[in-house]
């Protein structure tokens, strides 16, 4: 059934803990045609921490996320989980290693209820794996949301009738409940959400981290980032140009880095982001 992910152990595995990074990537590069999307990016994710990745459009955030989720293969660079170096052939490898991504489209079936979406593709069934155990599905769904501390309407509510924040919550609850994800990657979880809904989602993100999950959040919203994250990586034209602890930075500094200014107001990177053909 499930292939064994291609991982090369590099000695004793320290396991996932708060002291050792859950996931380390080093020197990731990725080029699409002439555009260098990633230019030697290194990031660490820690269990129990929220790591935010910010940057302008085209800074390489989404490419980074897709590589970590196994959806895109890097040209070079290493990915280490625990103490093993891993190569993802596709997203099922990443899933098997406990990495789940929630993309902006959320991948929900609007015409079906919350419980059916939470158990999409892995509905609990009886002995011959035929008849769905509806009661059990409803009970376990309610339990999952209770554990995540989320208020939800009945599990029979159609997902299409939920608010944006609730839909985001269902998608996040699914990766936790379904795949037992220990590393969760969230793509713009608060985009297109109102103030209250955003807060619901940010609270959920915080609680995920508190339950010792390593969370990476891609976001444009610096206020949200500063309120929820522990560490912020700032990307600019395919490179990480700054790593800040949330307590030791502020919005203006981040904005400066995002638009490519140093604190002195000079350009941070010269126009090196385009790779001339044949010069790669």
């Amino acid at each position, binding site marked *: 059934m499930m292939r064994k992910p291609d991982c090369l152990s590099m000695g004793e595995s320290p396991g996932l803990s708060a002291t050792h990074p859950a996931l380390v990537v080093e020197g990731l590069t990725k080029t699409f045609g002439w555009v260098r999307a990633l230019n030697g990016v290194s990031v660490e994710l820690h269990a129990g921490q929220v790591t935010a990745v910010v940057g302008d459009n085209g800074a390489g955030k989404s490419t980074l996320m897709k590589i970590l989720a196994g959806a895109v293969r890097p040209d070079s660079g290493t990915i280490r989980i625990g103490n093993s170096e891993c190569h993802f052939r596709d997203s099922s490898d990443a899933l098997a290693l406990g990495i789940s991504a929630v993309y902006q489209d959320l991948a929900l*079936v609007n015409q079906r209820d919350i419980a059916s979406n939470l158990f999409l593709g892995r509905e609990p069934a009886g002995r011959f794996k035929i008849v769905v155990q509806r009661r059990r599905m409803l009970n376990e769904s309610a339990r999952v949301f209770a554990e995540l501390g989320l*208020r939800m309407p009945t599990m029979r509510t159609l997902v299409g009738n939920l608010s944006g924040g609730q839909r985001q919550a269902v998608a996040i609850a699914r990766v936790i409940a379904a795949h037992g994800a220990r590393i969760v990657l969230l793509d713009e979880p608060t985009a297109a959400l109102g103030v209250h809904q955003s807060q619901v989602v940010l609270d959920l993100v915080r609680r995920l981290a508190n339950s010792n999950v390593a969370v990476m959040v891609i976001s444009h919203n610096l206020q949200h980032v500063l309120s929820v994250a522990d560490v912020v990586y700032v990307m600019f034209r395919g490179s990480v140009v700054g790593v800040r602890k949330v307590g030791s930075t502020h919005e203006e500094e981040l904005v400066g880095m995002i638009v490519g200014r140093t604190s002195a107001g000079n350009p941070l990177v010269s126009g090196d982001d385009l790779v001339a053909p044949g010069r790669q």
Partner: protein
Amino acid sequence: MTHVPGGAADNRPVGDASTQAVLERQASSLHILWRTREALLLAVGIALFAAFALTAPHFLDLGNLLSIARGTVVVAIISVGMTYLIIAGELDLSVGANFGLATIVLGTLVQNYNLGDFQAMTVVLFLGALIGLINGLGVTLTGIPSLIWTLAAMFVLQSVSLLITGGYPILFSVSKAYAFIFGGRLGMVNIQIVWAIGIVVGGAWMLAGTRFGYHVYATGGNAEAAERAGINIGRIKVFCFILTGLLSSFAGVLLTGSVHSGNPTNGMGYELTVIAAVVIGGTNLFGGSGSIAGTAVGAAMLSLIGDGLVLDGISIFAQDLVTGIIIIVAVFMDIQLRQRILRFVK
């Protein structure tokens, strides 16, 4: 089964009292609106029924009601398969031709090849399923829309029927056992009605209660999400096509239980009647939602209209006129309700 602390209490919404009340109210109101859609359909059915009961002589006779039920049989059975297909986001226009071909192949095998009637039936059911398989593989592997692929399949199958028969009906005889099992009577009730009820109930159970049914809804509702969740949407669609093909040929078998002839014009136009029954029954033509119960009501309504008009002394040619109006009313109601629900949520 995992033990859940608190049991049934855990099934209630999570959260503090006030939010919970709001959410509960919201959910139940929406629920009522969804139910309203089915209630309205039933109301239209009952209104039609009442109108005929008041105006048409002998409409309420048990014999007539049973004849309405019997008139529903073929369309109801094929509609069950079509409901699966439409919910999965596909369509099959070759069901009528498949149905007609079944009666012809069965007649030819019995009459010209001296095959036993039950053996011929087995061959015919395999053929029906095979046609479904080819439709399913054709649509999922080539990427040709099912509307186009099965339109072509319809023409091909109709032509095959004409080639086999030379355009003439095939008359044949069947054993008493065969005639009883597929066309006999249990008291006043034609056994075909029992078959149809069994298939409708079984089909409804499979769609609503099994993993396969859940995956059919997911496939039509959001194919990409289903695929990412590990559901093989191609396989689901192929199964739906096979089911539809099989049920179409089985409907043909039932016809040969009472009418011992195969006719190349059998089933012509049925594809649209079947789709009408499914759509009137509230299944979304774009996939993702619908029910077998609705389809059964839709099929019964179509049969009811034909019967009532005849008893009222109105030309049978007016049947399609009324059917057309009903389709528009049903789908219009559907759209109105959906919009109202959306407005309610915002």
